[in-house]
């Protein structure tokens, strides 16, 4: 009787989960469908299909500029955030020091902060300081939000790090630098890699912070938004689909690389049977 009820609720939960995942992907499927529609204004079911918008988008010089700007911002944000957040995460989860609990809370505040308001505050801040906004200021703005997130992600790994590993290496004669290179960095590598992936993709897709801080430069999400509100062109779903598939390919490549590394490590770590 009870196991019957269990099975029913298990089925219901599974069905519900699948339904919600479909709900999460529905709009993305809609964007991809729209990108293959010949009509200037989308209608469903799609009467005529085309790949014309892809050719046009890929040939457009302004799109190349957009992609280049987005890529530069995301790449720089990733490198800088990972370095700052690595030490931040050590302070968050590895070391015990007076003031740590306060630091933990303060450093997470930007995550809880409305991004649009943060973007506007930074716009004012730059103008008061006399800094001309450009894609570089957007890097700074993105990092305010992304560094705390990466700290959080890396901390999860740092918490499970046994400090005795560092002490053991030190005890065995390693210098501080050798301890970092030989033990701390390699053991924390999975956390660092996932932090970097999140940093890159969150910067790549960010809109509210970019909107107010890129000045004359424009990232892909900004351009998409501006064309959605005025001057709609079917290049919106097309470029949208392209960036989505870019993100998907990126995640897939990382995932495959991960599998390869894990497999190599397993091979390396398995002693021959004899």
């Amino acid at each position, binding site marked *: 009787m009870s196991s019957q009820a269990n099975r029913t609720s298990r089925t219901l939960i599974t069905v519900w989960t699948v339904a919600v995942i479909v709900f999460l992907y529905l709009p*993305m499927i809609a964007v991809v469908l729209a990108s293959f529609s010949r009509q200037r204004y989308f209608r469903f079911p799609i009467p005529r299909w085309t790949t014309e918008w892809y050719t046009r988008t890929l040939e457009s010089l302004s799109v190349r500029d957009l992609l280049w700007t987005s890529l530069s911002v995301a790449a720089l944000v990733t490198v800088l955030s990972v370095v700052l957040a690595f030490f931040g995460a050590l302070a968050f989860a590895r070391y015990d020091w007076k003031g740590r609990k306060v*630091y933990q809370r303060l450093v997470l505040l930007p995550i*809880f*902060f409305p991004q649009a308001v943060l973007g506007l505050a930074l716009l004012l801040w730059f103008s008061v300081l006399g800094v001309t906004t450009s894609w570089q200021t957007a890097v700074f703005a993105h990092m305010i939000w992304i560094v705390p997130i990466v700290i*959080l992600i890396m901390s999860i790994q740092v918490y499970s790090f046994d400090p005795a590993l560092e002490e053991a290496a030190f005890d065995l004669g390693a210098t501080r630098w050798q301890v970092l290179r030989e033990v701390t960095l390699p053991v924390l590598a999975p956390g660092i890699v996932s932090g970097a992936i999140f940093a890159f993709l969150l910067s790549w897709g960010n809109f509210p912070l970019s909107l107010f801080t890129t000045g004359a430069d424009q990232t892909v999400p900004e351009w998409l938004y501006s064309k959605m509100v005025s001057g709609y062109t079917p290049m919106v779903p097309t470029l*949208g689909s392209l960036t989505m598939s870019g993100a998907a390919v990126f995640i897939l490549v990382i995932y495959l690389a991960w599998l390869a590394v894990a497999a190599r490590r397993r091979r390396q770590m398995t002693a021959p049977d004899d």
Partner: protein
Amino acid sequence: MSASRHDRVSWLRQPGVLAALPAAIFLLLGFAGPLAMVFGYSFMPPKTFSLMQPPTVENYISVFTDSYYISFTWSVTLAAITVLLLFPICYPIAYGMAKLFGKWATLVTVLVAVPLLISENIRLFGWVLVLVKNGIADGSLQTLFGVSMSGLLYSVPAIVLGLVYVYLPFMLFPLVIGISMIPDTLKEAASDLGASRWQIFREIELPLAMPGILIGGILTFILALGSLAESKILGGQAIVMIADDIESSFTFAQNWPKGAVLSVLLIALSGIIVYALFRRIDLDQIIGRR
């Protein structure tokens, strides 16, 4: 005196403090600084761009006597509705991920997290395509049943849909952490002691999962409260939310002090809630499972 200075120096030399410094200085410059400045502007006379004027509370008075309460009320209401809808939507999934799905839970996690990495406004634009006249919803209904359902877009329900959609992962993941903190044996013990399913949920699960529920609820509430894109892309001109008002004060109206006051009020509201949350939870326990 010299002893306290010595204490300060030795505090600074701890590895934890040294490691905290880079990020702390960066956030001081890029987060605390701008916020202090916004706070300063909120006391400047209307429409000034200088921080050197004699301070005044004029802006606060004008904001309270003006009709800004409308956008505030909309923001708070929609944020509350979002949280109330997200909790029952996410709880069963979170329960499944924490207790039932086993190795499939990783797949669900990835599937829910991937959309987070795709620009919010592309995904919201997808909803425009679904809801728009002759779009996916309308077009399907016309083809299948011959009924038309135009007018879905640019309405309050469309904004709520957008908020629920965008912030779903922010409710789901904290709930998963919260629920996985409940040891299975406790529920078995409760059931052994004669508790019904509903009693187990109310007496055991809910209180023990509370840190996760609080984080999820407050995170989604605050993010929805300060949201901008949902109401602009899906709501059209249907309503104005507080972030719209702040944006237009800073940009079109060029009234920085007024925008600053609205920001300060929004920050204060979010800040009180976050403060209450942080007092109740232990981050070491939740993130580090200690």
